[in-house]
C-alpha cells in the first residue's frame, strides 16, 4: 500500500524538483486553460469581453496565490526554500572567509578530536568481538587446569564447547637464526568454542588431541604469510618447534583473533605438554565457553556454581577458593579499561563543548553585524520561523564543513594514537574510521550546527529585533543582549578549559612523580633479554643447570660486564606466585595458604641489579645444588610475615611439597618496583636455579650490566650463547630503561591525550576571549573616544579594558575551579601519588589560565588605548 503510493509520488516529487521549469509551465497552462474555459462560459452567458476575463480571474481568488498553493500541495516549496537557503548560506559564507575559516577550524578541532577518540572507544568498547555469535561466549575470571575443564564439560549441559589455551614460547629452528614464536597450546574444542574454521586444511580432532597423539600444528594467518609467504600448498609440510617435528594440517582465517598476546601457531596441549596438561593444580589455561543457543547466562552460571562447589569439595588442595563465575567474554576483555577510556571521552567531549561555545559566540558576533539586514527582512514580512530556518541552514552548513574537516583530522589523530601504542588497551589495533565513526561524526556535526546555531538565531530574532531598532541610535557599552550572551559564553569557555587544564595538570604531576619513583634497583647500563630452553633437549635439571653455569661464565667473561639470571624481570609484567607455609606456624587448610611472589635467580643477581642487602647474607658460591636449600626474601615479606622479628634462619616451603623441602631464609633484600613504578611491591621469595625443584622453570632473563652500547653488548651476548647452543632464540631484548618506560606507556598515553585536549581547549578559550574583547571594544569605541577626549590616558584605557577581561577570566576561573573540584575525583584511578584535588595543581593552573587570558585581552586593549578620539567619536 505504502509502496504503491511511493510509486506515484516519488517520480512526481522528483519531477517537481528537477524539471521545475516544465512543471511551472504546465501549472501555468492548466490555469490558463481554466481561465479560457471560464471566459467562454461567461461570454456564452452574454457578458462583455473585458468583464468576463476579470470575473474569471476574480473567481480564482488570486492566480499567483493559487499557484503557490499548488506548489505547496506538491510539497515543493519546503525543499525549494531549503535549496535557496543553502545557496544563500554558501554565498554569505564565501563573502566572510575569515569568519568561515575560524568557525570551520574551531569545529574541526572539536569534532576531529571527538571522532578520533570515538574510533578508539568504538574499537575497544563498542564493536562486537570478532567471533561468530560472540554474545554466547563466556570466560572465567581465573585460569583453569585441563582436568578442571574436563570436569566442567562432564558436569554441565548449557555449554556447547569449552576451549582452553595457554601461550608458550617455542623455538622455531630450521634455517638461519633460531626464532622464538608464540605457540597456543590448546584443546581441540577451542576452535568450535571460538567458532572458527580453518581457511586451508583442518584443525586437529578430539581423537588427535590426546596424550601421545600425533604432533600436528595449525598456523595463524599472519604467521603463514610471514614465514611461508602464504604458500597455499603448505598443508602436509612440517616444521621443527623446540626440537620436535610438527606436521602442518591447516591455516586459520585472517579474522582469527585471541585476546592477549598474539599467537603464531596452535598445537595440542595434551600432545605438546602432557605433564602440565595432566596436572590439576596448575591453573594456566585461559578459557572460552560457548553457551548453547538460547541458554541464558543465569542458567549457565548456576550450573557453573554447582561444578565449582563440586570441584572444591572433590579436590580441596587444587580447586578451593576459585569462585568460578562465568563472565561475558567482552566484559572480561575490556572491563578494566572502560573507566579510563570514559575519562578520555569525557575530556574530549569538553573540548567539543568549548569548540561549540566558540562557534556559537562567533555566530553571535556575526549576527550582531547582520542585525540591520535581519531587522529589515523581518520588517518586510519575513516570518521569524523562516529567518531562523535560514540562519540554521547556515550554521548546519558550517558545522558539516567542520565535521568533514574534523574527519580528516581524526584520520591523522588515529594514526597518532597508534604511534603512542597504548599496550594496555585491548583491541586498539582494530581502531579505524568505520561506518559507526562516520555516523557519529555526522550526528555530532549536525547536532552542533542545530543546537549552537539556534542560540544566536533565537537571540537575534526574538530578543534582538525590537531592541535593535531602539538601540541603533547610540552604541553603548554592554548594552546588547548579544554581547551579554557572548560574555556568558566566554565565561563558560574559560571554566571548561580550566577543568581540562587542571585534569592535564594532575596527570602531569602524577607522571613526574612516577618518573621520580626509586625503582629499588639501578636501571642504567642494564641490558635484558629472554632466553627459553626447549623442553625436548633440556628436560633434566642437570642439563638446565649446566647451561646456566656455562652461560653465566661466558657472559661474565665479556670485559666490563657483570651478568646474572632471573626468572621474572622487574616491570616486564611477568610474575609467578606460590602458596607457601612457614615452619612452626599453625597449619592452614590445604588451598588457603598465603601466596607469595616467587623469583628464581642465578649468579650475583642482587649486586648486578643494585638491589641492597638489608639483613643476613646474599646468595654465595657455597649455595649449590645439593647444599642447604636457601632463600632470600624482600622487605615486604618481612613486613607482612615477620614484623619486628628476626627471621634469618627461619624456614619456609611451598605448600604441600612432597617430599617436604624446607628452605632456610638467609637474607633480606630491599623492595623493588616489580609491577611498575606506580604499584607497590608484594612479599617475595627469591631462590636459586641451582637449588629449585621446579624443573619446568626453563626460561630466564639474563640481566647484563655493562657500559658498552646495547648493540655491541647484544652481539657479544649472542656469540657466547650460541657457542653453548646455537638453537636458542633470544627475544625481548631491551635496556632496563626501555622496560621502565614501557611500563609507563599507559600513563604516557593518557597524559599525552589529556595534554593535547587541554592545549586545544586553552587555544579555543583564548580565541573566545579575544573575540569577545575585540567585540566589546568596537562596541565601546565611542565611549573610549569620549574618555580620551576628556583626558583619559592610554594607560587608563588599557586598564579599563584589561579589567573587563580580568573580570570575565576571574568569574570563569572560579566556576572552573568549582567544576574541577567536583569532577576530578572521577580520574583518581589514573593518578599516582597525589589526590585528585591536589592543592598545588588547583593553585598553580588557574594562574596559567589567568595569564593567558590577560594576554588575549591585551592585544585588543592596546588597540583600544591607541584610539584617536576624533575617529572614535565619528565612529557610528
Amino acid at each position, binding site marked *: 500500500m505504502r509502496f504503491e503510493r511511493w510509486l506515484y509520488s516519488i517520480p512526481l516529487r522528483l519531477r517537481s524538483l528537477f524539471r521545475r521549469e516544465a512543471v511551472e509551465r504546465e501549472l501555468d497552462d*492548466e490555469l490558463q*486553460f481554466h481561465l479560457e474555459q471560464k471566459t467562454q462560459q461567461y461570454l456564452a452567458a452574454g457578458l462583455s469581453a473585458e468583464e468576463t476575463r476579470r470575473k474569471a480571474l476574480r473567481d480564482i481568488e488570486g492566480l499567483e496565490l493559487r499557484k503557490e498553493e499548488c506548489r505547496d500541495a506538491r510539497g515543493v516549496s519546503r525543499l525549494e526554500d531549503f535549496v535557496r537557503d543553502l545557496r544563500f548560506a554558501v554565498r554569505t559564507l564565501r563573502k566572510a572567509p575569515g569568519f568561515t575559516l575560524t568557525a570551520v577550524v574551531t569545529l574541526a578541532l572539536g569534532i576531529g578530536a571527538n571522532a578520533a577518540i570515538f574510533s578508539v572507544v568504538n574499537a575497544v568498547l563498542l564493536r562486537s568481538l570478532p567471533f561468530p555469535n560472540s554474545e554466547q561466549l563466556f570466560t572465567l575470571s581465573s585460569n583453569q587446569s585441563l582436568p578442571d575443564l574436563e570436569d566442567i564439560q562432564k558436569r554441565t549441559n548449557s555449554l556447547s564447547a569449552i576451549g582452553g589455551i595457554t601461550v608458550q614460547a617455542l623455538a622455531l629452528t630450521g634455517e638461519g637464526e633460531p626464532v622464538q614464536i608464540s605457540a597456543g597450546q590448546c584443546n581441540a574444542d577451542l576452535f568450535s568454542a571460538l567458532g572458527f574454521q580453518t581457511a586451508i586444511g583442518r584443525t586437529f580432532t578430539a581423537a588427535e588431541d590426546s596424550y601421545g597423539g600425533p604432533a600436528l600444528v595449525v598456523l595463524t594467518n599472519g604467521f603463514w604469510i610471514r614465514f611461508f609467504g602464504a604458500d597455499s600448498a603448505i598443508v602436509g609440510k612440517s616444521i621443527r618447534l623446540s626440537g620436535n617435528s610438527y606436521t602442518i594440517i591447516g591455516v586459520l582465517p585472517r579474522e582469527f583473533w585471541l585476546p592477549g598476546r598474539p599467537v603464531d601457531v596452535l598445537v595440542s596441549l595434551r600432545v605438546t605438554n602432557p605433564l602440565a596438561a595432566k596436572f590439576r593444580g596448575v591453573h594456566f589455561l585461559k578459557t572460552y565457553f560457548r553457551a548453547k543457543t538460547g541458554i541464558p547466562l543465569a542458567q549457565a552460571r548456576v550450573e557453573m556454581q554447582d561444578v565449582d562447589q563440586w570441584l572444591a569439595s572433590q579436590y580441596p588442595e587444587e580447586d578451593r577458593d576459585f569462585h568460578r563465575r562465568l563472565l561475558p567474554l567482552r566484559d572480561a576483555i575490556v572491563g578494566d579499561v572502560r573507566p579510563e577510556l570514559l575519562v578520555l571521552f569525557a575530556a574530549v567531549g569538553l573540548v567539543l563543548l568549548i569548540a561549540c561555545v566558540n562557534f556559537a559566540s562567533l555566530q553571535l558576533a556575526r549576527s550582531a553585524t547582520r542585525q540591520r539586514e535581519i531587522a529589515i527582512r523581518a520588517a518586510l514580512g519575513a516570518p521569524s520561523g523562516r529567518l531562523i530556518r535560514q540562519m540554521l541552514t547556515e550554521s548546519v552548513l558550517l558545522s558539516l564543513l567542520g565535521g568533514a574537516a574534523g574527519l580528516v583530522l581524526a584520520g591523522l589523530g588515529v594514526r597518532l594514537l597508534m604511534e603512542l601504542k597504548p599496550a594496555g588497551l585491548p583491541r586498539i589495533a582494530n581502531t579505524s574510521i568505520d561506518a559507526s565513526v562516520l555516523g557519529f561524526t555526522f550526528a555530532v556535526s549536525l547536532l552542533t550546527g542545530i543546537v549552537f546555531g539556534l542560540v544566536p538565531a533565537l537571540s537575534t530574532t526574538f530578543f534582538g529585533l525590537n531592541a535593535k531598532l531602539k538601540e541603533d541610535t547610540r552604541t553603548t557599552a554592554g548594552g546588547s543582549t548579544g554581547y551579554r550572551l557572548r560574555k556568558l559564553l566566554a565565561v563558560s569557555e574559560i571554566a571548561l578549559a580550566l577543568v581540562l587544564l587542571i585534569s592535564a595538570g594532575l596527570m602531569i604531576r602524577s607522571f613526574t612523580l612516577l618518573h621520580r619513583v626509586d625503582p629499588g634497583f639501578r636501571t642504567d647500563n642494564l641490558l635484558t633479554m629472554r632466553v627459553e630452553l626447549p623442553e625436548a633437549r633440556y628436560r633434566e635439571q642437570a642439563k638446565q643447570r649446566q647451561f646456566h653455569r656455562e652461560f653465566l661464565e661466558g657472559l661474565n667473561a665479556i670485559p666490563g660486564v657483570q651478568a646474572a639470571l632471573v626468572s621474572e624481570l622487574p616491570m616486564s609484567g611477568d610474575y609467578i606466585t606460590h602458596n607457601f607455609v612457614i615452619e612452626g606456624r599453625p597449619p592452614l587448610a590445604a588451598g588457603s595458604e598465603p601466596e607469595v611472589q616467587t623469583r628464581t635467580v642465578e649468579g650475583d643477581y642482587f649486586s648486578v641489579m643494585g638491589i641492597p642487602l638489608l639483613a643476613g647474607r646474599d646468595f654465595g658460591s657455597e649455595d649449590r645444588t645439593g647444599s642447604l636449600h636457601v632463600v632470600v626474601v624482600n622487605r615486604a615479606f618481612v613486613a607482612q610475615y615477620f614484623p619486628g622479628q628476626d627471621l634469618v634462619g627461619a624456614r619456609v616451603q611451598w605448600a604441600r611439597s612432597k617430599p617436604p623441602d624446607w628452605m632456610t631464609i638467609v637474607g633480606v633484600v630491599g623492595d623493588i618496583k616489580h609491577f611498575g613504578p606506580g604499584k607497590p611491591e608484594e612479599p617475595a621469595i627469591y631462590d636459586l636455579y641451582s637449588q629449585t625443584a621446579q624443573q619446568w622453570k626453563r626460561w630466564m632473563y639474563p640481566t647484563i650490566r655493562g657500559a658498552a652500547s646495547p648493540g655491541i653488548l647484544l652481539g657479544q651476548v649472542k656469540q657466547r650463547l650460541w657457542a653453548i647452543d646455537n638453537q636458542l632464540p633470544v627475544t625481548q631484548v631491551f635496556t632496563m630503561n626501555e622496560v621502565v618506560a614501557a611500563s609507563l606507556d599507559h600513563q604516557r598515553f593518557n597524559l599525552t591525550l589529556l595534554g593535547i585536549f587541554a592545549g586545544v581547549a586553552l587555544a579555543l578559550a583564548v580565541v573566545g576571549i579575544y573575540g569577545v574583547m575585540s567585540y566589546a571594544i568596537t562596541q565601546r569605541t565611542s565611549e573610549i573616544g569620549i574618555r580620551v577626549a576628556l583626558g583619559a590616558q592610554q594607560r587608563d584605557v588599557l586598564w579599563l579594558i584589561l579589567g573587563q577581561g580580568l573580570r570575565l577570566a576571574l568569574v570563569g576561573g572560579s566556576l572552573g575551579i568549582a567544576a574541577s573540584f567536583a569532577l576530578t575525583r572521577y580520574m583518581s584511578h589514573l593518578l599516582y601519588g597525589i589526590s585528585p584535588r591536589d592543592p598545588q595543581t588547583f593553585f598553580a593552573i588557574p594562574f596559567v589560565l589567568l595569564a593567558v587570558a590577560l594576554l588575549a585581552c591585551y592585544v585588543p586593549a592596546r588597540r583600544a588605548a591607541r584610539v584617536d578620539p576624533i575617529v572614535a567619536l565619528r565612529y557610528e
Partner: protein
Amino acid sequence: MSKPSDLVQGTLDLLLLKILTLEPLHGFAISVRLKQVSGDILQVSDGSLYPALHKLEQEGWIKSEWKPSENNRRAKFYSLTRLGRRHLEREADNWNRLSAAISHVIKLEEA
C-alpha cells in the same frame, strides 16, 4: 460564491474522486460536472479546486495526462488510479456511515 469551508473537511477530496470514477476530466470540466451532478447545490470554488487536485495527485490517488480537449485545446486530464479507487471506496463507506448516523440523530430529535 461557495467557500471551501462550506464543504465538510475532506469531503472535497471525496467528491473530486467520485466525479473522476466515470471518465478522465480536466479541472474546469470537473467543477462543471460537480455542479450538474449535485443539482447546483455543491460548488467548488475555482480557487480551491486546483490545489486540491494537485494534492490528490501527489497522494497518488489520481494521475494526470495532457490530451486534446473537446474543443481541441491541450488540457490536463485527471483520472483515478487504482489506489484512488480503493481510497474512494473506503472514504465513501465512512461517509455513508457518518451521514446515516447524523440523519438518524436529527430524525430522533424531530420525533
